[in-house]
């Protein structure tokens, strides 16, 4: 089995327009959540989110390109561009034939769907733009990233709701570890901050109207965000041979299904995923110093996740740190796991464990070290990133210092 390392990263979220800006915001414990701004916002009860402000598509793409790029594709392309540039990777002809792209998304081109539903249903138009389908399809982002960077190997999209990115990165990890390819671009992207995207979530009544405070006893729900993060995953010897800067090593991945409830989390499924990832990484629980939690800020998730961590990690649960960066960038649904991998890399590489901000009152049901409000300097040898999706689908990754 080949070893797999991360040699490039790129991101755009409400916290910043690059991986470095995101890392800086996480270090400072800055909140990217604020008033939402899009058509019909006055008809929503939920009016806050981690929206990317001051974003001008025409500053990054030509008019011709924009006729084909939904917002979720634009975010993925920007993050991928930064990841490839920062990796210093040159895509040779031989490499191009095997390198591919696996991206997570849940809603795909939701903004395109919404705009065009408005045109045909609300404005009663009988004609839509010819590129509606290629813009809205869930694989549009992965396909455009593959085209822009000439990556002709295995390329596809994974949609497992809030675990999409972790499942996607797990697939990329397996492809390289299994020797099928030496380089993959992977991560995820989401752009659900539009009237329909929020209205649908409102219906579930799990959204907070003001502040996302994971693990805090007075938490009152999740808050959505938008954006993308993309990484260059590379076979270790290939990275070493070209003198690449290695950000971290991916050592374990596991996925499970609760097979129980379509929305309620299940401790057993989460425990099996975390234990599975540790086993795959051949690491004892004691090696893990930081967990980037799924930590949505809902009553059900945070309580269940903390109980699951206790069960999976035993005594180590009282020694490790666990934080939810969703308190800062919001829940980026299908892209969230990728954005949260930035936090794991920050902990492993820079020794900075990002905080769970907006934490006010300790909750006896979440009695772990949740790194409240202020980032902490610490030496972390291995980190885990959790994603527990609606549908009961769980995906956990384990990373180690390079």
């Amino acid at each position, binding site marked *: 089995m080949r070893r797999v390392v991360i040699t490039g990263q790129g991101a755009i979220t409400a916290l910043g327009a690059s991986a470095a800006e995101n890392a800086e915001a996480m270090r400072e414990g800055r909140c990217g959540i604020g008033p939402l701004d899009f058509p019909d916002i006055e008809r929503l009860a939920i009016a806050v989110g981690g929206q990317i402000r001051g974003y001008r598509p025409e500053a990054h793409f030509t008019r011709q390109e924009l006729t084909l790029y939904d917002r979720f594709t634009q975010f993925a392309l920007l993050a991928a561009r930064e990841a490839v540039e920062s990796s210093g990777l040159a895509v040779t002809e031989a490499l191009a034939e095997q390198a591919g792209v696996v991206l997570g998304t849940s809603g795909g081109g939701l903004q395109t769907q919404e705009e065009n539903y408005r045109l045909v249903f609300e404005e009663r138009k009988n004609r839509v733009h010819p590129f509606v389908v290629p813009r809205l399809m869930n694989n549009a982002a992965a396909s455009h990233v593959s085209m822009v960077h000439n990556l002709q190997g295995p390329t596809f999209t994974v949609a497992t709701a809030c675990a999409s990115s972790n499942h996607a990165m797990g697939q990329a990890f397996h492809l390289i570890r299994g020797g099928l390819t030496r380089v993959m671009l992977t991560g995820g992207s989401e752009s659900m901050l539009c009237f329909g995207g929020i209205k649908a979530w409102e*219906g579930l009544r799990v959204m907070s109207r003001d502040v996302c405070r994971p693990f805090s006893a007075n938490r009152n729900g999740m808050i959505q965000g938008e954006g993308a993060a993309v990484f260059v995953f590379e076979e270790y010897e290939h990275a070493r041979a070209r003198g690449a800067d290695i950000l971290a090593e991916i050592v374990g991945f596991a996925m499970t299904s609760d097979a129980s409830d379509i929305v309620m989390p299940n401790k057993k499924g989460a425990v099996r995923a975390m234990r599975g990832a540790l086993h795959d990484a051949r690491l004892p629980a004691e090696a893990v110093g930081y967990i980037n939690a799924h930590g949505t800020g809902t009553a059900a998730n945070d309580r269940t996740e903390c109980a699951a961590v206790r069960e999976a990690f035993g005594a180590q649960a009282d020694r490790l740190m666990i934080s939810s960066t969703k308190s800062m960038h919001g829940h980026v649904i299908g892209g969230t796991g990728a954005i949260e991998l930035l936090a794991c890399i920050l902990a492993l590489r820079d020794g900075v464990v990002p905080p769970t901000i907006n934490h006010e009152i300790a909750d006896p049901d979440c009695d772990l070290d949740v790194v409240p409000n202020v980032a902490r300097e610490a030496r972390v040898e291995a980190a885990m990133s959790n994603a527990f999706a609606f549908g009961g689908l769980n995906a956990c990754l384990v990373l180690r210092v390079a």
Partner: protein
Amino acid sequence: MAEDVRDKVIRILAEQAVLDPADVRPDMTLEDLGIDSLGLVEAVFAIEEAFDIQVPFNANAPAESAFDISTVGSIARAVEGLVAERT
């Protein structure tokens, strides 16, 4: 009028619980009815649609919502209040 609201609420809860409305008593809890959290969210939606009201209910903190869901009777009373506010 008040009686109508109560009957309608009971009908909605009975439908969610797959019970005959005659078998639903005001002192029953949601647990007695076998309505789980997802069923409750559906029932709240049906109530909002039936009466054209906004029910202040957050599934994260049901106990802290202004909307008392402890029994069938308390739900009916809360809905009556919201309907009265509307008119």
